[in-house]
């Protein structure tokens, strides 16, 4: 804790902020349990669950067998028994074995039960590229989840949101997929951990991260930092940056309000462009703000290829220049 901050404020990285949020949720409710591969003694491959096994024991921090379907499937059973499991999927690319349990069971079970069942399960998924990893460790699968009714999908871009939103996700009686921007795990900021959870911005709300008047630049998760940098870099225009935070449902009220002010929208994400989240945002914003738009919504995304070997990832991932190119394209109208 830095000496210049208040007793309850701390300079935390995104990783440590999620860790602190998990700890607070576990302290507040004995039904909160952690499960996944290597989340126990190791504290997770990114150390996001560091220390929890030691302090809460093997009954509440469960090193599971190596089986993602098993993790989500048993989490559903635990939730039916009254627990609030927080599952770690070790990497984005290893989610897919759990697709059936997530999409046909977790997402639909409340509706199936006519509202009799609550499924307060959180899936934490470190996602995105840019860390020089081997295959399957750099995926951005959020659109699959956004297209699945019954799930809530959120992501974070800074330590403050990380600390609060993980607690909100755990507190929600709906299943929440919580995407963590792995290449930003070490970004630091001051987090005031003394506030009550109720005072935090709702996890469903988008946030204007930088005010501007000429163009709205929308990003989420790891791309928010890039978007802010792009906004700074473009000294010719006043660019408003919106941090989406909630991927499903999208807070279109905030997004459209911004677009109505600026008249232009660029959306950036790492996931493949086609049928990515940018498509939904472009489609919906165009419908809602048709007469306000001076240009079509411009999407900047990963290419429609498998995530490449790491020596090519700087070309695959939208960087500052590609985002600025998108901005230029929007201003070309």
């Amino acid at each position, binding site marked *: 804790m830095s000496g210049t901050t208040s007793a309850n404020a701390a300079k935390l990285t995104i990783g440590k902020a999620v860790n602190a949020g998990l700890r607070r949720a576990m302290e507040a409710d004995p039904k909160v349990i952690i499960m996944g591969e290597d989340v126990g003694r190791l504290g997770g491959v990114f150390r996001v669950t560091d220390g929890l096994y030691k302090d809460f024991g093997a009954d509440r921090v469960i090193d599971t067998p190596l089986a993602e379907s*098993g993790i989500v499937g048993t989490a559903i*059973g635990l939730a039916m028994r009254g627990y609030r499991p927080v599952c770690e999927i070790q990497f984005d690319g290893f989610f897919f074995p759990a697709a059936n349990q997530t999409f046909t069971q977790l997402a639909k079970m409340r509706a*199936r039960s006519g509202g009799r069942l609550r499924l307060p399960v959180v899936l934490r998924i470190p996602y995105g590229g840019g860390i020089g990893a081997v295959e399957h460790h750099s995926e951005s699968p959020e659109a699959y989840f956004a297209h699945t009714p019954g799930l*809530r999908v959120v992501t974070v871009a800074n330590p403050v949101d990380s600390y609060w939103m993980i607690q909100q996700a755990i507190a929600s009686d*709906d299943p929440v997929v919580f995407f963590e921007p792995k290449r930003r795990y070490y970004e630091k900021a001051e987090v005031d951990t003394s506030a009550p959870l109720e005072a935090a911005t709702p996890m469903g709300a988008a946030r204007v991260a930088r005010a501007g008047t000429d163009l709205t630049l929308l990003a989420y998760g790891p791309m928010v930092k890039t978007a802010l940098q792009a906004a700074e870099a473009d000294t010719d225009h006043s660019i408003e940056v919106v941090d989406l935070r909630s991927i499903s449902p999208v807070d279109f009220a905030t997004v459209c309000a911004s677009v109505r002010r600026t008249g232009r929208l660029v959306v950036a994400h790492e996931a493949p462009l086609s049928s990515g989240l940018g498509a939904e945002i472009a489609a919906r914003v165009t419908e809602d703000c048709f007469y306000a738009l001076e240009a079509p919504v411009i999407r900047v995304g990963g290419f429609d290829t498998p995530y490449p070997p790491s020596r090519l990832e700087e070309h695959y991932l939208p960087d500052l220049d590609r985002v600025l190119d998108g901005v230029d394209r929007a201003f070309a109208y």
Partner: protein
Amino acid sequence: MSVTHEEPELIQLLTPEGELVEHPDYPLDLSAEELRGMYRDLVLVRRIDTEAVALQRVGELGLWASLLGQEAAQIGSGRALRPQDMAFPSYRDHGVAWCRGVDHKALLGLYRGVTNGGWDPADHGFHLYTIVIGSQALHAAGYAMGVQRDGALGDDGTAVITYFGDGATSQGDTNEAFNFAAVNNAPVVFFCQNNQWAISEPMERQSRVPIYQRAAGFGFPGIRVDGNDVLACLAVTRAALQNAREGQGPTLIEAFTYRMGAHTTNDDPTRYRVSAELEEWRRKDPIARLHSHLSRTGRADDAFFAAVEAEAEELGERVRADCRALPDPEPLDLFDNVYADPHVRLEEQRAGYADYLASFDGVGAEGGR
């Protein structure tokens, strides 16, 4: 390095001829009244089933998955459960539903298409039917892990059971559930109704060896029981549940039985199986053998059988009437219960669709649709 394929032991307490046999590991001492009670169960669930098939034929149900032939496996195991226990069924487990006090209306509602669920799992200790094969086995294992964490084991503790078919043993999820249960020593009984068929595929396409043997590979006991013997199913399940309750971990029970009907009302089994097989199994009918035991031993008289018949008759009528009376859901129910907390997109879509429906008002008597 070699694997022995011995003819599996089949636990049996009641022969097809209706004679009681003893088994050292599974002593069972039922009163005549209890035996009559199980007979009544068997007859009544078969009656619900028969009616449901008929209701599908006349268009009152969209589909029905018949339990014909599997009554003993379901009633035997279902009656082994205690109120605090939790069952995770598949889609054909109407006999277990009966034991758990789930009203036939709820089952009919599912197959009529007025609901995808229809009862409260907590109220009945009976989860919703699960259609995606294998999925529920993991839910059961997880629930059992919760029971452990609640400290709800012991003599009067809670046990969990999950039901699935022979085909389901091929599914990754089922095997992951075996392993999660084994590694965690979770109090769960895996009850496989091996009815010899997965739609058109015979047992041999699903497993090279008898299914109960799978358990040993994961480190817990597996046992094959005569699935048409309601007493053996009761005794074996009771023992396995008690083991679970007492912290001895999982058991796999393979109830060796036969699907006497079609897979569902959509299916035509004449395309893939011969009638001789069916004939052979008819001789092992689970109801006939208890009937024969009861009447031969004088544990039930004609009046009793007549009374059960009458009750079945009356139930059949109720099933028909109740099914027809099931109300259709309201259009805007679509948007209910998808989420627990308010959801901006669904609220918007609900409002939009309400307006849309209202726009037909006055267009025609039927609202224009």
